[in-house]
């Protein structure tokens, strides 16, 4: 087994920056109790202003007036970590996120699918850069060694035991993941790197540093296998963006919406699934939340397409109150079946399959706006058709008008000419009883109409259809 260790040194900051509208402006993460606020992390622009992590907030404010301050939200960091684990899951089935700011990924089994390590590493780095996370990656035969080596290296790839021993030997003691007091006492003994530590007699070393440090050393060399808790992607996708300003127009929601949908697409690609229905929840400072439900007829995972549908639903929305946060919740994640396309497709450039067109129409016109038509075996004209369900019923070989009125209306015309009829339609005693004599009539204007009179009456005709 070969383990890739991905260290995310600025996980909290990157997670905030990638959702921030202006990541180029000075920004600092703030932590600590309210009496003593300190900067947890700063971005490059803030660093150029002289801010640095660990600085008290008051000092920072005297140095720079206008930097954005974001509180460290440990729950948000955990969610980002989970999201990245779900992303890593597409490259290997054994993913562990148990160590802080770190992803451990077993990659040897994935080489057949993704190609040798340099190619896979390039993909991982490309994806992480796209997602906006700074990272360091090291490959090693065991996860603990990879985790220790990534403290000092980036891009190192070791697949054999002998080079691993050598690389570990040159690793400084304080980067090896040993407890802090052990590092200090080893330093006082004059041991700066791991090489002389490994050379010490084991029993004597165990007496000096304790059993737990000895175990950590064994883990590094691979002598002790400690199982890792593996990550299982959740069956629902939830992401949330909180705004530090009030959003009052639905247009301003589109940028965060695109972020959320991109994350959803990454997550869906990781589990090779699609989404059939998802919910956009707009949270207001006061009042109940606004839910925008986006349903699709088939599972999809193309981010551009999902974004377009969501936008179609969001744009006509009039916001009654300003929005303070937006949440995307997807609970129905069925398997994704890609549509088969013809290799020699000669359709024009902007061609769009019918399914996609139908979704686009439904997104703007409403869920029930697009439907098919089918025949139902019933004599009553009102009930002789139905929406969508394809049946095997064959049409009656009788003259029927092409257009049918939803509700029959009186046909007021004194010069009607009866062309054919009557044809009696009498059915439905069990529900809406119909007893009518239908005629084909021509109006004085030359229109041909399908009209009826109730059986036994000689009143005016009721218009029920047009022979157009």
């Amino acid at each position, binding site marked *: 087994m070969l383990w890739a260790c991905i260290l995310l040194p600025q996980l909290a900051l990157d997670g905030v920056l990638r959702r921030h509208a202006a990541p180029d402006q000075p920004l600092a993460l703030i932590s600590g109790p309210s009496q003593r606020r300190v900067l947890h992390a700063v971005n490059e622009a803030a660093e150029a202003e002289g801010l640095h992590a660990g600085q008290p907030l008051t000092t920072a404010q005297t140095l720079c007036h206008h930097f954005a301050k974001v509180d460290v939200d440990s729950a948000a960091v955990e969610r980002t970590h989970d999201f990245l684990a779900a992303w890593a899951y597409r490259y290997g089935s054994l993913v562990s996120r148990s160590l802080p700011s770190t992803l451990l990924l077993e990659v040897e089994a994935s080489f057949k699918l993704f190609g040798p390590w340099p190619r896979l590493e390039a993909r991982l780095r490309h994806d992480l850069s796209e997602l906006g996370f700074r990272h360091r990656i090291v490959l090693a035969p065991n996860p603990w060694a990879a985790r220790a080596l990534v403290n000092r290296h980036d891009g190192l790839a070791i697949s054999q035991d002998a080079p691993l021993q050598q690389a570990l030997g040159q690793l400084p003691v304080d980067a090896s993941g040993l407890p802090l007091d052990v590092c200090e006492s080893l330093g006082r003994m004059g041991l700066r790197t791991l090489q002389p530590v490994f050379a010490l007699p084991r029993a004597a070393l165990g007496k000096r540093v304790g059993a737990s440090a000895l175990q950590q050393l064994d883990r590094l060399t691979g002598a002790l296998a400690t199982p890792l808790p593996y990550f299982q992607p959740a069956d629902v996708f939830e992401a949330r963006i909180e705004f530090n300003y009030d959003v009052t127009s639905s247009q301003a929601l589109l940028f965060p919406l695109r972020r959320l949908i991109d994350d959803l697409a990454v997550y869906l690609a990781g589990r090779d699934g699609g989404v059939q229905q998802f919910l956009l929840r707009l949270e207001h400072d006061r009042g109940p939340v606004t839910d925008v439900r986006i349903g699709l007829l088939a599972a999809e995972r193309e981010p551009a397409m999902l974004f377009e549908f969501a936008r179609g639903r969001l744009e006509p929305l009039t916001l009654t109150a300003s929005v303070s946060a937006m949440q995307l919740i997807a609970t129905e994640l069925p398997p994704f079946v890609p549509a088969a396309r013809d290799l020699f497709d000669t*359709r*024009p450039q*902007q*061609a*769009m*399959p*019918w399914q*996609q*067109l*139908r979704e*686009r*129409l439904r997104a*703007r*016109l*409403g869920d*029930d*706006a*697009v*439907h*098919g*038509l*089918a*025949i*139902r075996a019933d004599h009553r*004209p009102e009930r*002789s*058709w*139905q929406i969508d369900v*394809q049946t095997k019923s*064959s*049409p*009656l*070989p*009788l003259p*029927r*008008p*092409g*257009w*049918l*009125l*939803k509700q029959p209306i009186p046909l007021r015309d004194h010069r009607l000419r009866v062309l054919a009829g009557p044809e009696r339609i009498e059915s439905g005693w069990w529900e809406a009883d119909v007893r009518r004599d239908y005629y084909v009539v021509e*109006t004085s*204007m*030359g*229109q*041909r*109409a399908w009209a009826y009179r109730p059986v036994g009456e000689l009143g005016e005709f009721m218009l029920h*259809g*047009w*022979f*157009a």
Partner: protein
Amino acid sequence: MASVVALESLLDSRRVWRGQPQARPTSRQPTGFAALDAQLPSGGWPESALSELLLPMDGIGELRLLWPTLARLSQAGDATSDEKIVLIAPPYLPFASAWANAGVRLDKLQIVLAQPRDVLWATEQCLRSAACAAVLCWPLQADDRALRRLQVAAETGQCLGFAMRDAKAAANPSPAALRIVIDTAPAQLRVIKCRGGNPPTQPLPLSALTR
């Protein structure tokens, strides 16, 4: 005036050239009516273009005119091709068994219900998508610019577009490639514009519409 020659015998002996044009190539979109095809310069509906039918009132005969074309288009594709015939905002319910009797495959038929302000948008989307064999729309307010958009969309999507409009619009110019007015008294078709030739001078009686 040496001799009087009967016109018939001259024509029969084929010694007089009458300036008749070559037989035209048959259109890929025939209307299904030989008499109407003969009147149109392309020998059928203009391909990848918008055609306008101008109707003075309901129940005049637009479906009789279109059904043969729709029936041919719906039966043309094999089972895998999924080109639909889309009706956008039809004024009434299409009576399923009448459409089926006319030969239109109902599984290819799709109906889009749209508010008047969305009809043009939906039509443009359908025409542009190339997922439809024919798009029929009933726009209530359609000006010159809107129809030009539809015409461009039909060209882009290589799709037959039909716009059913009120006959009052016949007086206004339109970018549609073909415009046909249906009159009631007498019942006739008048082609008032056709791209690629002069419109025929004689109206076509509706009774001539036999297949």
